[in-house]
């Protein structure tokens, strides 16, 4: 047993080193390999140190899991990463809950069934099951199996509150009084499963980045609580790392939208019809063509590209990179401005651009890029809307007031590409489109960029 625990310490150290190497894209890939070696060590140490293990059964499980996991990993499109992470969170939470349940059945009625054991088992099943069902709902919403719109019904909050109170009450009762009836145990599982669903369905598609991050955190906490059940340091340390990671990302996503976590979870944003459109000011929009845009770009020295999710939807990342390369060959400095909530999960837009071979040094986050707009000649906004709306800075009545935005309007000229004049997620008109230094180029992002590339070459 001693060497098993030693191996777990080693595995934990490798996980920490692996994450540490994620601090730079240069070392990140090595870091991931280090983490996976840590996992391998933990698995081998476990397999070789416990007696009575049924190797055949475990091998079957590992092979089935490996095939499913590898298939996901190889076939997934980068735009589908949020779904994949969502469903994986679910598997992680599910695995932890199952382990805790297995432990419960094996210790049930024996002298080993202490109050601490039962308590941690209940906790682990509660978090794990909630993560499982919540993640599957999130997956369904992102994949389009379920409506991305918030699903609300009257008394939803009351129902949730009732389930939480019932779970705490039942959990405490079972922990202190010991389990008289198995039924109690099953009710805990059932309630946790329902809570995962009712907490996730009222959350709209645009808020999914927060939900995935939160569920990521839960899957870690589920692993940690299973670690308490088994008194296993490997699970506790890894679970704590993942739990912390998820919490940090949740916080970053909330800040990116200027919303509190409570508002995201209980707000059902996207459902209420914004009624302040009546006071919408008439915008004086200048619509233009790509050859005019090319001429403006020709006179520029510094260009900042602002990609929004519309760019990814139009599969126009490659076209954007080609325009950027053309501009660079003309001697211009090109940067990309990435808003924290530009994609569908933390860092999503960066991955989509990396896939299109955009060098990572050109990808700048909010804090790095905002001072750069001051001396920027042209900002090209592609399929982004709310994240460049100056109303967030000054209009207290705006629903996005206070949200950190990219200050594109400080550039000398702003070229905005959109399909139509339809407002963005927050359902509000963007005053930027009417600014004197703004020019709109309507059309599909990919077609517009291809045309712009051609016009630039023909200058």
């Amino acid at each position, binding site marked *: 047993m001693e060497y098993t625990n030693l191996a777990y310490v080693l595995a934990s150290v490798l996980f920490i080193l692996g994450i540490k190497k994620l601090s730079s*894209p240069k070392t990140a890939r090595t870091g991931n390999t280090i983490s996976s070696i840590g996992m391998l060590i933990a698995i081998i140490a476990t397999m070789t140190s416990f007696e009575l293990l*049924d190797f055949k059964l475990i091998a079957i499980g590992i092979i089935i899991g490996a095939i499913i996991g590898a298939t996901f990993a190889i076939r997934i499109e980068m735009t589908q990463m949020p779904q994949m992470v969502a469903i994986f969170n679910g598997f992680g939470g599910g695995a932890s809950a199952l382990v805790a349940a297995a432990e419960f059945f094996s210790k049930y009625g024996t002298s080993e069934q202490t109050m601490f054991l039962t308590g941690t088992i209940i906790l682990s099943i509660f978090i794990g099951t909630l993560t499982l069902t919540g993640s599957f709902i999130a997956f369904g919403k992102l994949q389009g199996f379920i409506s991305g719109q918030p699903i609300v019904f009257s008394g939803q909050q009351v129902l949730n509150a009732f389930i939480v109170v019932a779970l705490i009450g039942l959990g405490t009762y079972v922990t202190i009084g010991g389990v008289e009836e198995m039924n109690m145990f099953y009710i805990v599982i059932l309630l946790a499963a329902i809570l995962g669903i009712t907490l996730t369905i009222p959350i709209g598609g645009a808020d999914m980045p927060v939900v995935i991050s939160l569920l990521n955190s839960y899957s*870690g906490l589920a692993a940690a609580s299973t670690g308490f059940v088994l008194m296993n340091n490997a699970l506790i340390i890894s679970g704590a790392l993942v739990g912390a990671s998820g919490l940090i990302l949740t916080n970053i996503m909330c800040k990116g939208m200027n919303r509190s976590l409570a508002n995201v979870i209980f707000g059902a944003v996207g459902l209420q019809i914004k009624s302040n459109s009546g006071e919408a000011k008439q915008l004086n929009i200048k619509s233009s063509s790509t050859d005019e845009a090319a001429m403006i770009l020709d006179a520029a020295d510094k260009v900042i590209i602002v990609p929004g999710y519309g760019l990814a939807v139009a599969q126009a990342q490659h076209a954007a990179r080609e325009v950027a390369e053309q501009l660079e060959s003309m001697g211009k400095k090109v940067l990309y401005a990435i808003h924290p909530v530009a994609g569908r999960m933390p860092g999503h837009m960066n991955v989509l651009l990396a896939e299109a071979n955009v060098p990572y040094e050109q990808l700048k986050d909010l804090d790095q890029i905002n001072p750069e707009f001051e001396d920027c000649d042209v900002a090209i906004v592609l399929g982004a809307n709310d994240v460049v709306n100056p109303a967030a800075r000054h209009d207290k009545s705006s629903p996005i007031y206070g949200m950190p935005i990219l200050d594109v309007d400080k550039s000398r000229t702003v070229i905005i590409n959109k399909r139509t004049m339809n407002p963005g997620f927050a359902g509000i008109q963007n005053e930027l489109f009417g600014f004197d230094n703004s020019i709109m180029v309507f059309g599909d992002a990919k077609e517009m960029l291809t045309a712009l590339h051609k016009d630039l070459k023909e200058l």
Partner: protein
Amino acid sequence: MDMINILTVFILAIFIGFEIITKVPPTLHTPLMSGSNAISGIAIVGAIIATKVDGEIGTWLGLIAVIFATINCVGGFMVTDRMLKMFKRK
């Protein structure tokens, strides 16, 4: 004493987590998520131990847990590697 020990480990690990994860740049947040997803597949250790309860319901729960956790580990590490491969310099 055991309880206090593991609680200490848990709390210290959370602090380490906060320290190292705040240093991950936003560019790598998606790989961080999928990578930490893979790490939460550490539940596989518990799942393997769970299968040893012979012929009981625990064995079957353990088997399903092994499958779930392996999906996490294998899928998580592989997709993270696939993404990180794409991050290139000029």
